[in-house]
């Protein structure tokens, strides 16, 4: 650990870190948005309905056997 520390202690201009991080995120976001908007419609539909597929129960949550 000490070797790593001694090496990195000499880092100059640590202020650049936030700018780099912003750039990383921004490019990541653009690439992701591009791919998401080009996704196949059938796939989206299939994914969306995934939680509902096994639903043979009646969908009402508010039936109670008594009137409490």
């Amino acid at each position: 650990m000490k070797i790593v520390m001694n090496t990195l202690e000499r880092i100059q201009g640590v202020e650049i870190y936030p700018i780099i991080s912003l750039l990383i995120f921004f490019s990541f976001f653009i690439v992701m948005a591009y791919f998401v908007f080009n996704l196949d419609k059938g796939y989206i539909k299939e994914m969306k309905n995934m939680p509902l597929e096994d639903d043979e129960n009646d969908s009402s949550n508010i039936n109670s056997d008594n009137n409490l």
Partner: protein
Amino acid sequence: MELQKFTYDNKLSKLFMYATVLWGAVGLLVGLTAAFELIFPSWNGGIPWLTFSRIRPLHTNAAIFAFVGNAIFLAVYYSTPRLLKTPMFSKTLGNIHFWGWQAIIVAAAITLPLGFTQSKEYAELEWPIDLAVVVVWVVFGINLIGTLVKRRIKHIYVAIWFYIATWVTIAVLYITNNMALPVSMMKSYSVYAGIQDALVQWWYGHNAVAFFLTTPFLGLMYYFIPKASNRPVYSYKLSIIHFWALIFLYIWAGPHHLLYSSLPDWAQALGVVFSIMLLAPSWGGMINGLLTLRGAWDKVREDPILKMFVVGVTAYGMATFEGPMLSLKTVNALSHFTDWTIAHVHIGTLGWNGMLTFGMIYWIAPRIFNTKLYSVKMANIHFWLATTGMLFFSIPLYFAGFTQSLMWKEFTDAGALAYPNFLDTVTQILPMYAMRAFGGSLYYTGIILFVINVWKTAAKGKFVRYEEDSAPALEAAPSHGHEGWHRRLEGMPVKFTVAALIVILIGGIVEIVPMMLVKSNVPTISAVKPYTPLELEGRDIYVREGCYLCHSQMIRPFRSEVERYGEYSKAGESVYDHPFQFGSKRTGPDLAREGVKTLPNYKPNSWHYNHMLDPQSLNPESIMPPYPWIINDDLDVSTLASKISTMQTLGVPYPEGYADGQAMKDLEKQANEIAQNLKEAGIDVSAKKEIIALIAYLQRLGTDIYKDGNPEQYSNK
């Protein structure tokens, strides 16, 4: 295509559901007790383990890890097999996970009130329990990823991505923040010190909110809102974008907890920028949740489950709007250290986590017991009690926060502090504390109805252990045309996990590594020396009692704070503080310069002695609880040598061989001096008592840079 038959085992869902209900009732009762102790400080009756500062960590840990934690596991164990068309990977691992987690909770419930704590918020558990947490978390991870590997569905639904991100990130955060060197079986020192320790802690603290209270609940939302409303999620594209943006951004925002502290400016700025950006993906999630109910609002009028989901998701939207606002430096200057933060986090936990958990359990319980909910009316009453309780809890605390902060900052025309006595600002907000306790009581009444309703539902139904289902094997699943990168990634759960890990590590590394490794970030101050052995022992009492929960040790560079508490805190002053004690809340005054004799608030040894024994005898309106056991108990010095040598290992420059005998001699010498001083003030007390060590520590606080009478010469730059 041949269909394969398989069964879902509801046993663990049932167990996690019971655990959620039980620990919810316990954890919130502890919170309610703490709320009442703030109005009636002597409620602890002189009993250590009932004292506010000991049970406050119990409340936060129980609410987060016991109540919300079990709710997360319930959601995961119920929804994952159904989304992946396969039973969970291993029943044995599932059982180890369940019972291991409950054992950890019990261990926490015993050790925290007894004062075994690392004093890092939401990471208080001592090292042996931390190790158990890591083991159980790994077991959970194997079970989750194993289930993904043997699934029958090619693509993984968004809820499960959130579960994966939760698992991988909590693993990284928890291990990084809890790095500590053991001193004894139940005592350790953080390997980080001062400002570095604070940075790691709030990187963890912030992301515990993100990846324990938020991401798994977004997963839960993406499964149970469509289920309960019987309609698909509003926008699946939005869910992909907001997933990646959220996990990418959240991890950077930790330093917003340390604005105006001695943390370097660049790290503070980074925290603020990312906190503001975080608003977009957070609201992406809220909008997606609420719009899923489009066309179903008529159902929302009648269905308490949907009502709870709507209020829960709205509370999430409010809290995630407020969070970025609180990270703005101007707002933070006002809100930090006040009850504003407490109000903010309770909108999140009572609203978002609480409501979603209640809604989920009201939905699951009738299904796994093959019956109807015992009482819909009771669930409706619970909804209203929870909603009004949350508002009665939070709104008075917002007012308490503004009021107290403005009072702290108010100056008279002559340029003096308008309220130099901190206590004046406390008595002003006591009515708001009473209102908060009332709001908490309302919320808790709802919890009681919740317990009854779940219990009665379980009692009248018959538990369905196994549910049958069928699906084609994975190889035979149909595919849709060409495969995009994200679809391929989803098809590979292990790689997906690694991708999520990389995304969260980028933020973590950019933020933490330079801070940890660049020495120039913490300017050293030659006047700052390690604690004496007695002060170190006193500091450990301060940690044990949880003093940091009500008293900060961080004077911000504002005129109002420098005027009240003395020269603002420098990063170089806490380089020997393993762990740091900055605190995050000022229920009482800041103590960073408690020992500086030339400051107006200086208190002699005898004052501290009497104050610990009976705070109200000195300040009738004080809300500090009494700590008589510190007066009565002998100081345990059996681990002194181990403490000194552990500190030496961590880089604290005690002389070589100091632990072997000299340390004890120095301790006794300093203790006798303090006992003699107390005797001169008319207090006859043995030098062996804990109070002597605590006084030694308090009188040392903040004095180093005042030694030559010129504290302004030191800077943070």
